């Protein structure tokens, strides 16, 4: 049985508001809609932005179908937190069969594992780091081997803006760490920090490839403004320096995502707005090129 293992991509940045959630969702949407790939998306942020956005329809009303499914997954103890709980129990077999009670089908090719508030407890001393580090890898193994589930080509993780045990678990097994930055000093400043701390935190695991790109690019005509270009150059420089100095592979992508208000409604209205389609396709092309 040739099980083609999916490529896993984690979107992370310690800074909130840079677009981790937005970008994860938009890539999920674009890739599942415009390629033949099947995509599975995880919300690992206890803040649940992605889960909540999906739970809402345009106009702010509840998406009943999702709501019902979500409630029953909590009832049947089929959430990501339950999985983790089962996994971390000492001296026990990881008994957590996965199917469509654990994974929600947004569309035929875009599937979703929502977050739960319980993930907040992760930050307390409930679980210990070493007990959790293999969690995502083992969970993905279950997903890949489940006869009830399709074979996913890509798995995307929306990570919290901090080094939680869950993000640690993802980062130590994913193929690519995708870091959105924004064209301002604070958002750019995080790049060097995250590149350094990723390495510290993930060791002794091999560090995945890291791709950094500019989100919320201010444009003038069809090009980035001079100010955005300044930050692009600087962040590219930081990536190159970090790659040179340390044993990490950090690439600053040439493609960038423009700053467009329309993106705010993208998740609830169910589609990446037309003017952002090309930029996301280009970003994805660069991502897959970098991965292969």
């Amino acid at each position, binding site marked *: 049985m040739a099980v083609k293992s999916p490529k896993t991509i984690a979107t992370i940045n310690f800074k909130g508001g840079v677009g981790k959630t937005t970008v994860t969702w938009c890539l999920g949407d674009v890739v599942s809609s415009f390629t033949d790939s099947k995509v599975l998306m995880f919300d690992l942020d206890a803040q649940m932005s992605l889960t909540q956005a999906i739970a809402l329809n345009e106009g702010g009303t509840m998406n009943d179908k999702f709501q019902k499914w979500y409630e029953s997954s909590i009832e049947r103890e089929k959430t990501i937190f339950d999985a983790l709980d089962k996994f971390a129990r000492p001296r026990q077999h990881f008994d957590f069969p996965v199917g469509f009670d654990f994974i929600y089908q947004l569309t035929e090719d875009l599937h979703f594992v929502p977050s739960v508030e319980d993930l907040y407890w992760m930050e307390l001393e409930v679980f210990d780091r070493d007990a959790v580090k293999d969690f995502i890898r083992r969970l993905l193994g279950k997903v890949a081997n489940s006869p009830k589930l399709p074979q996913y080509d890509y798995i995307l993780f929306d990570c919290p803006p901090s080094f939680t045990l869950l993000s640690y678990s993802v980062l130590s097994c994913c193929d690519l760490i995708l870091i959105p930055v924004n064209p301002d000093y604070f958002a750019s400043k995080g790049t060097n*920090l995250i590149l350094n701390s990723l390495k510290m935190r993930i060791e002794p695991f091999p560090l995945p490839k890291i791709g950094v790109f500019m989100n919320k690019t201010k444009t003038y005509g069809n090009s980035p403004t001079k100010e955005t270009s300044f930050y692009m150059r600087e962040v590219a420089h930081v990536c190159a320096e970090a790659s040179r100095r340390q044993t990490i592979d950090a690439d600053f992508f040439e493609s960038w995502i423009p700053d467009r208000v329309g993106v705010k409604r993208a998740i609830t209205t169910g589609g990446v707005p037309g003017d952002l389609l090309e930029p996301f396709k280009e970003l994805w092309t660069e991502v897959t090129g970098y991965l292969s």
Partner: protein
Amino acid sequence: MSNGVFREPAQELEHLTGEISELKDLLRDMSKRLGQIERHVNRAFNVPKTLSAKKKTTKKSFPEKATIDAEQALKIFDELASAWNTENSRTVEDKLQSMTVPDLKIIAYELGLTFKGKPSKKALCSGIMGRINERIMLSKNTNITQPKSKKTDNSDGNKVASSGQGVIFKDESTQSVGKENNNVAENNEAIQPNSSIDNVPESSVVNST
């Protein structure tokens, strides 16, 4: 064709050259006459010499032309930024001060600096210094492996750059702070998991003159 009514090419050339030199003489006369009129007007109406002559004024800066293009501007910026590392900040400031306003404007423009109204030389220089600061800070290595004892003090106001290498990664505390700030859209104050970078170069924030 030699004895026909038409001129040979050599003759034709001679003819045309003659016409041209006639015209030249005419123009010289006209220009002489114009010069006379100009001098007359100047004397009659007491027009100051500087205005009528071609000489550039040094007082006003607007007729001054920039001497560099966009590419050179960015190169100068790179040089200044690395000079800031190797020499002292005064040298860099002096270098900026010695440049003309139009050149400074080109650099500022290429760095995406914006100003309210017409920027003064001081504003241009401090804006560019701000960008240099940002570059240094952005690539500063927050090295957590470095022993605490080696930690350098960043109290030296502006010149955070040279103190480098000393910031300790505050772990637990910032994780929770980061969390509170999550999804506060466009929240520039969102805390980095690094306590000591709050030394943001002023001029990158204050963009006015």
